[in-house]
Each structure stands twice: as structure tokens, then as C-alpha cells.
């Protein structure tokens, strides 16, 4: 159970949040122009890193805002949290 620093609300318990998987996967602007393989790449393919991973999180039982988090999956250390649309930090 980690402690997460919501960029909008501050430090809260993990039980208030839900994880939305890998971050920075942008929905294609023109899906109709993609091949099946290209669309499948967007739709299905996700990294599962042991180590530093960029993730989407939602403060589901709080402000309901989505934000991004850099987390080391091997020890759950959270390196950074930042708002949607902000540039990912260099870790």
C-alpha cells in the first residue's frame, strides 16, 4: 500500500486511487488510416517493465482527476507525479 502524492489533493493513501496502465500512449488522431497491425499496436500492446515505468493513475475516490506517475515496479518507489499534458520528467 503506497502513499501517493496526488498533484491536485496532496498525499493520500493508495486505496483512494486506481491505476490506468501505461502512460503516454496517445490515441491515434486518424484511426481509419492505420493498418490492422498499427491499430493493434495502439490497442493491445503494453509494456510490463520490471523497473521504472510511466503509469496513468486516477484519484478515483478523491478529486477524480487523472495524472501520471513514474514508479519503479520492482520496489514501488514513486519517482514523480505530474499532471496530464505535462512533459514526463527525465528519470
Amino acid at each position, binding site marked *: 500500500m503506497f502513499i501517493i502524492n496526488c498533484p491536485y489533493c496532496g498525499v493520500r493513501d*493508495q486505496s483512494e486511487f486506481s491505476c*490506468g496502465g501505461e502512460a503516454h500512449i496517445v490515441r*491515434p488522431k486518424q484511426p481509419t488510416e492505420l493498418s490492422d497491425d498499427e491499430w493493434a499496436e495502439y490497442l493491445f500492446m503494453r509494456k510490463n517493465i520490471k523497473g521504472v515505468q510511466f503509469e496513468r493513475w486516477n484519484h478515483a475516490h478523491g478529486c477524480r482527476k*487523472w495524472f501520471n506517475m513514474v514508479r519503479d515496479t520492482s520496489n514501488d518507489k514513486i519517482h514523480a507525479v505530474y499532471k496530464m499534458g505535462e512533459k514526463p520528467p527525465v528519470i
Partner: protein
Amino acid sequence: MTKYRINKTRFVDQTKTISFTFDGKKYHGFEGDTLASALLSNGIHLVGRSFKYHRPRGIMSCGSEEPNAICQINADTNLTEPNVRATEIELYEGLRASSQNCWPSLNFDIGGINNLISPFIPAGFYYKTFMWPKSFWKKIYEPLIRLSAGLGKSPSQPDPDIYDHKHEHCDVLVIGGGISGIISAKIAAKNNLKTILIEDKNILGGSTIYQNNKNFIIDNKKSNEWLMNEISELEKLDNLIIKTRTSLAAFHSYNYLLAKENISDHLPLDKKNGDIRQRLWKIRADKVIVAAGAIERPLIFNNNDRPGIILANSVKKYLDFYGVSTGLNNIIFTNNDSAYETAVSLFEKGISVKIIDIRKKSSSNIVKNAEDLGIRIYWNSTVVNTFGYKKIKSIEIMNLSEDGSNVTGNKHKIQCDCLSISGGWTPMVHMHTQSGGKLDFREIDQVFVPSEKSENHINVGSCNGDFELEEIVKNTNNKVKKFLNINESGFDKISVLCSKDLEKKNIWLLPNTISEGKTKSFIDFQNDSTAKDIKLALREGFKSIEHVKRYTTTGMATDQGKLSNMHALGIIADTAGVKMGTLGTTTFRPPFTPLTFGAIVGRSVGKFFDVVRKTSIHEWHVQNNAKFENVGQWKRPWYYPINNENLHEAVQRESKTARDSAGILDASTLGKIDIQGSDASEFLNRVYTNAWSKLGIGKCRYGLMLNEDGMVYDDGVTTRLGENHYLMTTTTGGAANVLSKLEDYLQTEWPELDVYLTSVTDHYSTASICGPNSKKILKKLFPNKDFSDEAFPHMSYQDAIIDKIECRIMRISFTGELSYEINIESKYGKSLWENCIKAGEEYKITPYGTETMHLLRAEKGFIIVGQDTDGTMTPIDLQMDWIVSKKKYDFIGKRSLYRSDTIREDRKQLVGLLTDDPNEILEEGAQIVSELDKKPVEMIGHVTSSYFSPNLNKSIALAVVKGGKKMKGQKLFVPMENKNINVTVSDFIFLDKENKRINA
């Protein structure tokens, strides 16, 4: 006093007698006893039978590591609890304990025959034997195994006790109230840190509190006296919470810990009632100091499991803490100095004691102490066999060869009634590893010790591999000061004198003259796995420690291998010829000791198990005899039986009345999302499959929402309330998920859209009136409103007022009938409903529940998302091509609708099914096949919805069938247990294909 209660101590009050029963027989103990110490004081060693061979087993330890003495407490009552360790339960008046895993009795157990045939039941016996013939499993093997297996009996009545949860925050949490935990807690609390000290026993002090040996001196006092003084000072500190009878269950990341406090387990039965039994503490600590101690290791030799074979330090605790001698003619078998403390204690109480030591010598103070007392020591020797069936009677010893790999010389037999064994100590690294910490292997005494990496927790004392009193005290002081950033503590100038254990020798599996296959050298006492089993597993090709563990079940009993894991590892390393440090360990998983389910769930039982959501009309439904069904957290009326109607009869009546005259449904539970903003229309265009830009204000439209993978996700009617204002409805169960999904897209993919979403599900109550007379009822309710088709057409909405309260009327239909939904602020829901019922009285309006709603919509072929779809259905599969916009450039899921897989023509598609016998009703979920003779029979689909339609007077069903679109008129079969039902594929709209009733 009994023969074995030979010592008076300050921990057991021998003026307070407590009576209890074991296996039906009455005994006495004293206040302060555990069940185990009380049994031993009565000379009872035999307390259980082993799991596989049903060998007699005795009490072996004095703590949570106990593998043998597990009992059923208060059998056949609602308070009963299986698998309780006798070493942990405090004695109370009226306690009834019984042994487990024996039949017909502990003294005569038929299962003991397994011991005789044990050469034929090696590791993996069950896996290997009960494989064939396959048909034997269900009828013969399983019932037999179930009869002979198992530990205690689970209670058959509800748990009467109350359990509690409590959240706590602190600066420092200290786990373990032994000497290092006490030093740590004192340093922390004295430096103004909010500190919690938890200890699983009923008093603080660990093993030092009964250490009265003169070789262990702190500040010129015997170590136990020094510690008692420290404890009394500790209890005066303000910012320290001391929790005894509290054991740590789990150490999660970010210093989140769970601890279980026993509040009433030790109280007499008549004082338990109504109290909270256990409390689960959920502690978030800034810093954690683990002082969990160490567990003594057994030694592995032939027949090392007889009653009367007990860990040496436990023998000392029974003697010096409980005042009980485990035997009157003791032998100590050791590989280290710590067991000599036991020997000296026994000798000083006048009990006969001899020592067998696998080492060649030791010159430490404590050994000299024993030699000076004249205690006989057999150096360089090992036990090769033990005798006595229900209690040890004698042992045979031999000399060890030069390198310890073999035995030499003659066997020498010695009589005894207790054998105290000590194989050294294993630091309790469970907490450290649960928190994510790693371990290092220390070669010199063969232990895994914590490898310190964490900034937020440290390990001190013997759980950190410090076994000698001096290093325990001094290292704890230094480490805690550094960890808490403190310059000076009260322990900086402390003087400690102790015996030093300099001669180390360890042999994981002691040698013997008998061939290995004929010995029984137990490693895991509770699961009966032996050294032979481990070696067999290695011969059979298992290499990973995790695999050997599962194959032999070593370490998988309720003690979780606290005594056995290290020996299993050691024997694997020796046999495979690898270094133990390279093998790694098995994973230490929480909980450290078993938790009760009660403690885990706390107060979330019964009506507090989950939130119950009721509509504002709920009371009316209750008064009118509604039966309810759970839809998500909502209670929805299912049907309203009149007189003694069953479900079928009520639904037939409700359905008929709704179509013939009028029906009313509480639709308040449907999800409602208020959508506002200048880009609201564009937003709906992107989330629904159909087009929304041209929907006029005051109009309603049905929408289908997909996942990005093209599969149907939710559906519902959305109404345009204003230029930039919509009200979306969702399915009852999907409301929360739909809102989350929409928010996700808005915040992350389309932040440029000016759209705001608000859940208003609970703000409005909804009465849905349908049937040919619905318009007349509405007219009565709203006399000033024009309900003509021109003024108020299908799929439109109007504001209205009833009893001076504003409401919205939507003319929409989920039944295919002329139908209106009235939305009103929730608090007026019930009065609106009652008005509707009153107005509908002359038309015999019937309230109907979800079952009738399902039937009515199925007659019209309307899908229910989640019933007729399962996350693998596209709108094309559902034959709903009409709702998928060809013109729109994009919407969620559009691209997926023409992936190679989604355009396959043999996908499961929605069809209607009619049974050849119109009275035969299919079972929902039933499988559909096209050919009965072809083996294996291919399943081509399943029934998703099925009803008897009173309006069509026949059975109808919806189903999904592979390539079903092109199968209209085809005969298929629904095979059931006793018969095959013949069905014909039909259109899935069974009633009013022309949609005439909507404007009736």
C-alpha cells in the same frame, strides 16, 4: 503442585488454579500458563498425530513455530476454532481443547498404519497414485482421502464474536518486546517520537526476562533483573503505546503494517460475551524497527519426532518462566552453546541432565559453567536413533567421524524422558522480506540475515543475526541512534558481560549407520516430510527450492516452515553440492501467523458487508409485496406476487397487463449523467456509434457505446435538454464505469473539449409508465398538457409540473409500447409514484419488476448489455448495423469494427430461437449445437435470454450463434441433461415488427 511443576516463578501465579479439559479429561493449571505449559505440568506430551503417517507427536516448542501441538478449541460450539497452537493459547477457566487428525482417538489411531506402510508412500505419493483410472477419483479416492486427511473442523455456526479494525499513525513502530525491542522503544519514546511497541506475548521481555544465568550480566545485574527494571521505566513513558498480545501479520510497502491484537481470547468463557474479540491494527509508521527475535532450529536425525523431543530453549522457558519441567531425566543434544544455559538451569533445579554435543569442544564461560557443575558432556557425538512410541524412553548415540560426514565406533544407549535439541538459531527475517528487503547468507553460522537497504526500517537484535547479549545490546543502541538521528541515548555507557559462542559447527542432516531409505529424519514435522523425501525430489529432477517445497510440501503447513525451511535448503545445498547462499529462499508471505477471517473482515459483516442502494420509492415496493433482486448495489423490485403467485405466474400477469392496459416500472436506478458544455454534441459524437449533432433540443435518442476494441460497452437514451446540455442514461450496473470512462477520455485524450460531466443518478427518481392506456394516465396526471403525437411525439421530452413540483417527461420506450418516463427530484419520487398508481387505478395499472421488463423487451428483441452481450459482441454481431454511423470520421471503437477478426462472418451473432414445442422454455446459458452425432460435439452458441411470452403464447429466446445471421429457419439443438430440445433460428423481433404499438 504436580510432579512436573517444580519451580515457582513470578510469571505464573500458583495461587490461582484454572481448570480445563483436554480430550475430555479434566486437568488443572495456573494463571499465566499456556495450554502447552499446563499440559506439560500434568506430564502430557502426546498431543497430536502427524499429518501423513499419524505418528504420535508432542509439544515441541513454546511459540508460534509449534508444528505439533495444534488443537481444536471448544469443539462443537459457535466459538470453536481449529488449528490453534497450544503453545500460544493462554489458559482460561473452562477452556476445552481436543487433539486433531486422529481417529478414533489420540492414543489409538487407525491411521497409524500409514507409519508402517510409509516406505510405499514417499513424496508425491498422492500425485503419482491417484491419477488413474480417472473415474475412480470422484467416487473412491477423493472421499477416502478426505476422510483421512485434514486438520481441525471449521465451525458450522455463525461466529458470535465482534472484530474490530483500527487505523493508527506513528513516528516509530517497534515490532517485538524482547530486549532489543525494549531498548529501541525507549530510545525512540524518550526522544519525543510517537512510538508503538507491539509484542505477541502477554508480557514484555522476550527470552531475556527469564534469563537468570549468572554468565549474563548487564550493569552488574543479572540480565533478567536489569530488563525488568527497564520495562517498569518504559511503562511510565507518555508517548509510547505498548500493545501486548498483538502479533504482526503483515509488513507492506511504505511502512504499512497489519497487526492483530487479541483482546478477549485469554478471558474465561463467561467474560468473553459481547466484547470485541480481536482488533486488526492498520498502522502507517514513519519508521519501523523490527526486533522480531530468532527461532531455535531442531536437529535432523533418525526418529527425531517423538513426544518428549523439545527445542532446548523451550525447555528452559517451560522451566524458568512457567516453572514446569519437561522431564526428570533430561538429555540435551546440541551443536551450539545456547543449549548449555538450559542444562545449567535444569541442573540447578536438581534435574538429571546430560549433554551430547556434535562439536569437539567449546571453551566458553557457559560450557565451563556446565563442566564445573559436573554435567556429563559427550563431545563429538550424535544421536542416531530414539526409542519410545508415545513418549521418548531412550536414545542411541555414536561418535562422529573426523569430518562429521559419518559415524564411528559403537552405539551407546542412554535412558531419558526428555530430549532437548538445539541446532542453532534462525533469525526471523519474515518481516524484513515481506517489506521487500533482501537477505545475505552468513557462512560462519549458516544463517540468512537482512541486507540493510531500506531508509525506513531496520532490524535489530537476533532477527538481525546478533545472537550474543553484548552485541544485541550495543548494536541495537548504535543502530537505533543512527536510524533515528539521535546523538546520545541512555544506553551508551552500558556494560554487558556474557558467554561467547566461539565454536560453530553445523550438520544439516546428521549421519547414521542405517541406510537413508530406512530412516525417518523429519524436517517438516507438521507435514511429515523427511530428509529422504527431499533427496527423492532432487533425484526426480526438481531443482528450484520453490518446486521441491511444493512437491514434498515442506514448509507448507500451518507453521509455514518456521522450523523446517532452513534444513530443507541446507539438505538441498549439500545434496546438490552447491553453496546455500546461491539457492535463495522460498518466499516469506504474510500473514506471519494465521489470521482469523473475523479479524480480516472486521465489522464488514451482515448488513455492513456492502452498501445497499434503495430508490426513494423503495418503501412502496416493500409495502406492496415486491420481491427484490440485487443489481449492482441497488435493490430493484424483481416482481410483485399477488396472493401466492410464484415468479412465473406473477411475471405472466404483469407482462400481459402491461401490454393490454398499463404497467409501471421504477426506473430510478438507471445511471444518469448530466453533460454540459459548448462541445457536448461533439463529445457525444465521439463516444456513441451514431450521430448526435443534428438532434433537436427536446429530442431523445438511443445510443450505443463501444470499447476501443469495438465491443459493446453500454447503451441508453440521451436527451438534449438545451443547446449545450444533455442528460445521458446508462445501464444500472454500468453507471459508475461509464462515467469513469467518459472522464478518462475527456481528461486525457480530448482535454480541448469544453464538456463537464456530473453524475445525477441519485438526484432523480423515475417512474416509467407503458401500455396502450399510458397516454390516458398521463393526461390525468398532467391535465394541461397536450399528449397528442404531434405535440409530444415518440423520442421527445417536455418539462412539466405536478403538485407544483417540476419534472421532466420523456416519451421513450424499452417495451415497444406507448411509454412515458417521468423524472422528478428524488425526494418527490414516492409521491409521484403514488399519484401514478392512483391515476392508473381505473386502467388496472400493474407495477412490474425487472423480470417483466426483461420479458417485454425480449419480445421486441431489445438487447440488455451484459445479458445478451459479454464483452465479445460488436454492434454488427448484434445485427445493429443501423446504429453505426458510416459518415462519422471517428468514434470510440470505430477502427476496431473492421479489424480482420471483427469482420469474420462466423462470429457469434444475435438470433432469435423458437422451440419446436412452444411450451418448452430454454435455460439461459444452455449450449447450442448443430450436429448431435459428430464427436466431439461442437458448441456453436448459447442461449442468452429465454422466457415464456404470455402475449405470443409461446416460448421465445435470444441466443448468440456462430454465423447466426445467415441461419434463419435452420434447425438446431439444445442438448440438456436428459433430452435434446429442437429449436429453429428465427428473427429476434418476436412482436410488433412494424413498431405500431409505440404510437397506439
